[in-house]
């Protein structure tokens, strides 16, 4: 039985120092797939404290803190927006707008508040608005189909690379079939590393609802992918 905790600590993204760059892509993909396949109760470690401190300093008028804030948040925001839009240019544009909105609202930042859910909520609103205004649905094309070359691994066994790639594509395909609300809740928790409480804030719903959506997504993935998914979660 899966156990969800609102105060679940988050994953730390350590740099892959000393590893052949050509291997990194496949390793990251494999780690990402494994993290998606992992039950939601597993502890992960990450902290938003540097971003919170930077935003707090920026709100007080320290302009240099904006650069630190960007370094802390931009990769996560860009990853989230890229996954949602499947379009580099749109994701970049939305990241820029998110930071500019945060800049304009810096005086309202509450001391001690967590900047991450706020930033994601702004990014999500911009994304929704962007989709509405453009009058078309966010493209659900897979990243590889859009022309990006698959990363080549020399260190990992070829069958592992193939399995990892197939599973990543299958997960992405299955996720795209799920309701947006379920997929989004699952991705915010599993991919972006937000806690249940933070994801609930971003999505404007309750922790229980987020928990339910993420659990259903997890169950759907497990049912759809079966042994392939189970193998990665081990």
């Amino acid at each position, binding site marked *: 039985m899966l156990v969800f905790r609102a105060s679940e600590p988050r994953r730390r993204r350590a740099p892959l120092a000393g590893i052949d760059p050509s291997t990194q892509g496949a390793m990251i993909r494999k780690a990402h797939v494994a993290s998606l396949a992992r039950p939601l109760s597993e502890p992960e470690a990450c902290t938003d404290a540097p971003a919170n401190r930077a935003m707090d300093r920026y709100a*007080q008028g320290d302009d240099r803190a904006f650069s630190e804030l960007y370094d802390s948040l931009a990769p996560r925001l860009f990853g989230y927006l890229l996954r949602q839009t499947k379009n580099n240019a749109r994701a*970049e544009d939305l990241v820029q707008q998110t930071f500019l909105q945060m800049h304009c609202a810096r005086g309202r930042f509450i001391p001690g508040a967590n900047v991450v859910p706020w930033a994601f909520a702004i990014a999500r609103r911009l994304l929704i608005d962007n989709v509405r*205004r453009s009058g078309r649905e966010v493209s659900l094309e897979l990243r590889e189909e859009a022309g990006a070359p698959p990363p080549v691994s020399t260190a990992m066994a070829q069958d592992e690379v193939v399995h990892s790639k197939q599973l990543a594509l299958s997960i992405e395909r299955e996720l795209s079939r799920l309701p947006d609300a379920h997929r989004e809740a699952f991705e915010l928790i599993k991919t972006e590393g937000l806690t249940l409480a933070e994801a609930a804030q971003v999505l404007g719903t309750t922790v229980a609802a987020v928990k339910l959506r993420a659990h259903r997504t997890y169950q759907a993935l497990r049912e759809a992918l079966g042994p392939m998914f189970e193998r990665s979660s081990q």
Partner: protein
Amino acid sequence: MKKRNAIPPAMKDRILAAAQKESSPTRTAVTLDKALLLLTAGLVAANVFLAVGGVNLGPRPLELVISTALGRGTIALTATWAACARGGSMLGRSRIWLTATTIATPLAIAGWMLLAARGAPTGVPVADWSCFTTAVLLGLPPLVAFALVHHRSGVSFPIATGAALGAAAGSWADFLMVLHCPSPEVTHRLIGHIGPTVILVALGAALGAFAIRSQVRSDYFRTDRSSIPGFNDAG
């Protein structure tokens, strides 16, 4: 070959340049603005209160008026805290919290009123519509000030936030009506003193939908960005 999911290094420079170009107030300036706004609203409400006659004890004993005003003032302060404070989150309180504030505030006022009505002496009858209009006028300045404080604040539930702010403004109107209206009649107080809170809650919800809700637009910075070299050639 360019990596598809990599952030372009130039983006940081573009964002920092755009931020430098677009001035934004610091927390100190925003806090000062909010304080001035709330003070102005208080002064406007006080002027309306004095214009309609100010404090009017009527046949009521002073102790009763003071104790009632203290109780209602406490309710108003609590409602204001519950509606205005964001609970340490930039995205505001939960919908349950805000809805509870909206419902509990008039109920708490009515409960206090019914308890205090037992020991109240009979007084002069006052027209319901007169107190109703006065209470709405007294509640409008704080409601507008609360809404402006939350203007485009990006809270998750703007309509629920606006409704809760309306309830808080209504509780301040009721506080002033306790000092102003000597009528002990429960029906009159329910219609003339608490009834306006319902109107203010509805107005607050409408303000929430239009003034508190974040107006996020994809092309919000389009004009300013066009003048920044290289800003629009991302990707």
